[in-house]
Structures are given as structure tokens and as C-alpha cells.
């Protein structure tokens, strides 16, 4: 196991992933859920680029990371649009209000 700069990046990305994982559990605001997902994807992006650097395929990992960035942005847009719609219909951004919805 290396303790160089790449090891620090790996460790930092893992810590970021753990923090966002915890945040996903405790967050109840819908907009903040989307925000926490963004943090989680950024940690995954960092791991992806670090893995590309470690394996010597940095260009391949860049093309993967580009796709992930596009998909991540679309997820944010759709999630925020859904959150705004939920706020408009229920008057709240709390996810516990969604459990009272009936089909």
C-alpha cells in the first residue's frame, strides 16, 4: 500500500464517500438529499480518476468521468424539479410527508 499522494487521494475520497453515506441517512430535506447525492458522486469521480491515474489509463478514466458528470448533472436537475413539484403539492420539503401520499 502506498502512502504517497495517490494514497491520500484514495483515503480522502473514501472519507468523503462515508460522510455522504451518513448524510444520506440523516437528511430529510428533499433538496438536501439531492445535494448529498452530488457529494457522493464527487467522491466516486475522485476515485475513478485516481484509479485511472494508478492504472495508467487516465484518458479512459477521463471519458468515463465525463459521462458520470453529465449523468450527475441530469440527476440533480430531475431531482430538483421533483423536489419543487413535491413542495408545490404538499407544501413541504420533508420526505416524511411523502409517506402520507396515497395513489
Amino acid at each position, binding site marked *: 500500500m502506498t502512502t504517497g499522494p495517490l494514497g491520500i487521494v484514495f483515503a480522502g475520497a473514501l472519507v468523503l464517500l462515508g460522510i455522504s453515506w451518513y448524510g444520506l441517512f440523516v437528511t430529510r430535506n428533499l433538496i438536501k438529499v439531492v445535494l448529498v447525492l452530488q*457529494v457522493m458522486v*464527487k467522491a466516486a469521480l475522485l476515485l475513478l480518476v485516481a484509479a485511472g491515474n494508478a492504472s495508467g489509463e487516465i484518458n*479512459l478514466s477521463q471519458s468515463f468521468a465525463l459521462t458520470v458528470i453529465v449523468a450527475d448533472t441530469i440527476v*440533480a436537475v*430531475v431531482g430538483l424539479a421533483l423536489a*419543487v413539484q413535491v413542495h408545490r403539492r404538499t407544501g413541504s420539503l420533508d420526505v416524511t410527508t411523502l409517506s402520507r401520499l396515497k395513489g
Partner: protein
Amino acid sequence: MAITARSLLAATVWLAAVSAQVAMLMYLMGAETVAVIELSVGAGLVTVLFVFAISTAGEETTEPAHTSSTYGVIAATIAIITTTLLAWMILPIPEAAETVSAAGLTFAQTLWQQRSLDTLLQIVLISAGAMAVLGLISTTRDSRSTHEQAETPASHSDNTARSNSKPHGEVELPARADRPTQEETV
């Protein structure tokens, strides 16, 4: 800080800071193109989207007052266990390779030749994102016109029944035929 901040706007600013830091690390690892894209999209576009959504939906700072300490401890335990398992799977970390690419391809060649299917997927995703942005914008338009049309009786029978069961300000938009659909707008 992005997660624990009570204010949504403060959390958004912290998210932009995280994005900038991630972009810096990517640049240092040799992924210059993606670092620039991450900086512009992650710290720019996504921040603007969050601020727009917060200004539309309003700021609610209800948490973490609702979160009990027991639930927080359980969540932290699960997060630590899963992260440790992930670290155990990907460790030991290999040393950084000296070669830039085994095949000798540049980023553009890799993207357009090897991963051309990803490019098509990105086009589809961007189209879906454009639809979602239109939905986000039309939401604010709907909420404005809903207040105006709540006084007049709705023409459509289904929407009338639904409108009567909801309080003022939460009624559905009665008729959508007078407005162009999202596909027509695009």
C-alpha cells in the same frame, strides 16, 4: 459542512467548494479536461440550479432537529462499516503508473473512438435534462397561473374534482391545452 449546514444556501456554497477542491485534485492527477468540466459544471451550473430551486421552493431548516441521536448513531455505524468494507476491497492502492495510456490514445481519440456509445448516451441524457429544466421553469409559471385561475371554475371535469379536494394554492393547473407541451417547445 455541506451536509451539516442548516441553511440550504450555505450547504450549496459548501457543495461548490467541494466541487472546486475535487476539480483541483483531478488536475493534479493529470485529468485536466475533466477538471475544467467539473469546475464549470459542478461549481457553476449545479450551484445555479440549486439556488434557483431553493428560491422557488423556499428555504426550510427543519433538520437535524427531527433526527434522533439513536438514529444518527445507527446511520454513522452503517456508514463507517460500508466505507471500511469498500476500503478493504480497493486496498492496497497500487503505485501511480508512469505511462499515460497503454494504447497511446489521446483523450479525444478515446472518447470518440473507444467510447462513442457513451457520447450517444450523453446526448440522450442532455435531452432529458433539457426536458427537466423546462419542467422546473414551467413549475414556477404554473404556480403563478394557478393563483390566477383558482378563482375561475375549471372546464375539465377531472381537474375540477381534484381541484375541489385541495386547499387554495395547491390546486392542479386545470387546462394544459392552451400551453405548448415540452416537446413542442424544444
